[in-house]
């Protein structure tokens, strides 16, 4: 009777002790932490992203890793909570991560403070702080391929185009239904700037997270009758918003969502009811015919190694995860070009790699992103690398591209980024990086 108890307690104590000792990274292994959320109100959207991310890493390992350096990864559940994301970051910090991606703007704010001290680059593809595109101030942040100001600007461009020109916007009303969090508040400075320049009215309608209660908000929309509604939500907030729009009879054609509010998960509950709903995309949309999708289906899912269901592959959020992973991996590869092919890269070296990323169209095509992505080229001053977007619209069954490639207006974007970055630098008492520092 005593022995099993002793044995059990010995086993448990051994597991407990080993649980708190950091795992030593073996040589020739590049560690990538995956801060994801598969539980909570943002899980429907976070899960496909994480599946895409992990599937791409698995694909890389199948192909031998990055120049024969295998990728190891570990998922950590954050539940979109900033404190838990910080906990995950701290827990996985000891395994020498190549870069960290947080999939949460709130967590990006928190980890931005810690990453420079820990020398880990923060990769935020399509989210994070918009001003972190300014690499001279934000040395360790990489909002590659697009920030929220790019999204907001191109949405306004699409709206202006629909109206027939920027001058036609004068006197019109645009309502921003946003998630009341750092993520949702990001586009406000840019849209306010546009409103100031072109003379349209911006109505701010915050939605308390997680956003399941929107009846009051949409009642306000019905009363105010804005000409356009820009939806800046995430998770269940998106599908709730579209359902409420349908209930209050607001035309879905006049709704434009950010790229995190334009995925299958947001509209499939409503299906036909969301017909005409538009969303901006960060380069890619739903691409079931892309080469990379076919490769992933054949090499990963066909062998039963897929992280999620097969139907997800090629959908918007899954592809975004794939794109994020690809950019991170290419950043490591780019670091290896300089610091030694076939060697394990440190966080500082990966930072250099991400800062000197040059994904040309032939390179992207070779990776399987032909027709999906456009070239990305980062530099010391510009950590964004590209600002291409398109608008896609839900036709009841699929997301269909309804616009050409657009770019954010640099005349508006650049001064705003610089001014906000300068404010941050003044607050933190940082000095702008100069040319010499860019070589490190």
């Amino acid at each position: 009777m005593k022995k099993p108890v002793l044995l059990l307690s010995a086993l448990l104590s051994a597991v407990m002790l080993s649980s708190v000792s950091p795992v030593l990274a073996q040589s020739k292994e590049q560690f990538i932490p995956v801060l994801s959320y598969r539980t909570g109100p943002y899980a429907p959207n976070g899960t496909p992203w994480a599946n895409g991310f992990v599937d791409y890493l698995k694909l890389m390992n199948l192909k031998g890793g990055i120049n024969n350096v295998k990728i190891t990864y570990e998922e950590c559940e954050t539940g979109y909570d900033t404190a838990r994301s910080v906990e995950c970051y701290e827990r996985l910090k000891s395994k020498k991560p190549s870069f960290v991606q947080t999939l949460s703007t709130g967590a990006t704010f928190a980890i931005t403070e810690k990453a420079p001290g820990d020398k880990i680059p923060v990769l935020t593809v399509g989210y994070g702080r918009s001003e972190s595109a300014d690499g001279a101030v934000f040395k360790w942040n990489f909002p590659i391929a697009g920030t929220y100001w790019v999204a907001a600007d191109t949405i306004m461009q699409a709206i202006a185009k629909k109206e027939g020109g920027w001058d036609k916007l004068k006197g019109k009303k645009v309502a921003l239904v946003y998630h009341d969090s750092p993520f949702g508040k990001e586009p406000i400075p840019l849209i306010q700037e546009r409103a100031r320049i072109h003379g349209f009215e911006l109505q701010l309608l915050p939605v308390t997270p997680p956003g399941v209660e929107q009846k009051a908000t949409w009642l306000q929309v019905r009363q105010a009758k804005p000409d356009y509604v820009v939806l800046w939500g995430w998770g269940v907030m998106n599908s709730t918003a579209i359902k409420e729009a349908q209930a209050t009879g607001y035309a879905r054609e006049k709704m434009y969502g950010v790229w995190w509010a334009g995925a299958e998960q947001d509209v499939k509950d409503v299906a036909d009811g969301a017909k005409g709903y538009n969303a901006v995309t960060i380069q890619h949309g739903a691409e079931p015919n892309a080469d990379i999708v076919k490769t992933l289906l054949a090499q990963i899912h066909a062998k039963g190694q897929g992280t999620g269901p097969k139907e997800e592959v090629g959908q918007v959020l899954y592809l975004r995860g794939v794109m994020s992973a690809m950019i991170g991996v290419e950043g490591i590869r780019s670091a290896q070009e300089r610091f030694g092919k076939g060697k394990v890269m440190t966080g500082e070296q990966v930072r250099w790699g991400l800062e000197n990323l040059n994904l040309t169209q032939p390179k992207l095509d070779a990776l399987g992103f032909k027709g999906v992505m456009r070239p990305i080229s980062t530099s010391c001053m510009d950590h964004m690398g590209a600002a291409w977007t398109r608008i896609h619209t839900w036709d009841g069954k699929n997301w269909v591209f309804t616009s050409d490639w657009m770019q954010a207006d640099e005349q508006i974007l650049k001064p705003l980024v610089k001014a906000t970055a300068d404010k941050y630098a003044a607050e933190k008492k940082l000095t702008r990086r100069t040319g010499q520092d860019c070589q490190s």
Partner: protein
Amino acid sequence: MFYRENGQLKTSYQADQQIFPIAQDRWFILAMLLLAFVVAPLLATDYWFSAILIPFVIMAMAAIGVNILVGYCGQISLGSGAFMAVGAYGAYNFFARVPDMPLIPALILGGLCATVFGVLFGLPSLRVRGLYLAVATLAAQFFADWMFLRIKWFTLDTPSGSVSVSNLQVFGLPIESDVSKYLFCLTLLCLVALLAKNLVRGAIGREWMAIRDMDVAAAVIGIRPMYAKLSAFAVSSFIIGVAGALWAFIYMGSWEPSAFSVNESFRLLFMVIIGGLGSIMGGFLGAAFIILLPIFLNQALPFIAGMVGIEISTTVVSHTELMIFGGLIVWFLIVEPHGLAKLWSIGKQKMRVWPFPY
């Protein structure tokens, strides 16, 4: 046999009234302090500091605060997250708005803001008890949620609502490295624990316990319920406010209003219930348990599942954590309402009379 106090005779009132009258206890506490202040900084890795020790120290302080209110005074409070938030944002506003404000006064002023807030939301306790008071304090939690999200003044009018602090230093010593953060928080924790222990040993602590046990009888013998309850709210909110400010400044560095949501309130309540209501040590034990359990499960569950060949996803670990917490709360409330601290004191009692059973 191990814990006998034979021959330990006290010859002065001071010796008799000390916190640890038994010599073995004093040696043990000395060893723990040595371990915490000297051995841990030398041996612990960065991972230990950032993932385990610093959160444990700060949460232990908050748990002591909650224990004073819930365990010693018997006022159920689901608003602890709000008090942490008020402490954090109060300290932040003093730190950021007043030029050259030193860190410790900012923390204390944040604690005082939390005290005012706590006393205000403790007023319902004079009329309602038990579950209804829990709901009233829940209102404090949601009010604080709303206040820091919508009133931009508190977050210094930042467009994102996210605030951050940096370049912390105490008397010229920078608090940047993990070791310095840990030692700073540990010092404050020791001071707060000493303060709390002496308060609960004294007259006011006895008033709180009388109110907890039977507030009508306490009123009959001359204890003023208003003073006792509001002082419990005040002291508790101060401690929780300082802990909240430390959590925000030292552990998070940059935070947003959702960092102090209702989940934090529940977490603190669980810590106090599992650790032991009505004991200072209970705060420590509960905080250690709640901090360590997720990390332990994160490592143990995949390991155990791997032994039987099943792959576990992070979702399962996350849900198991919640299930285990829930199960443990129910178990503790039924089997041992005084929590781990009571188990500890039973253990000590067994050691005193060993090899005899009683």
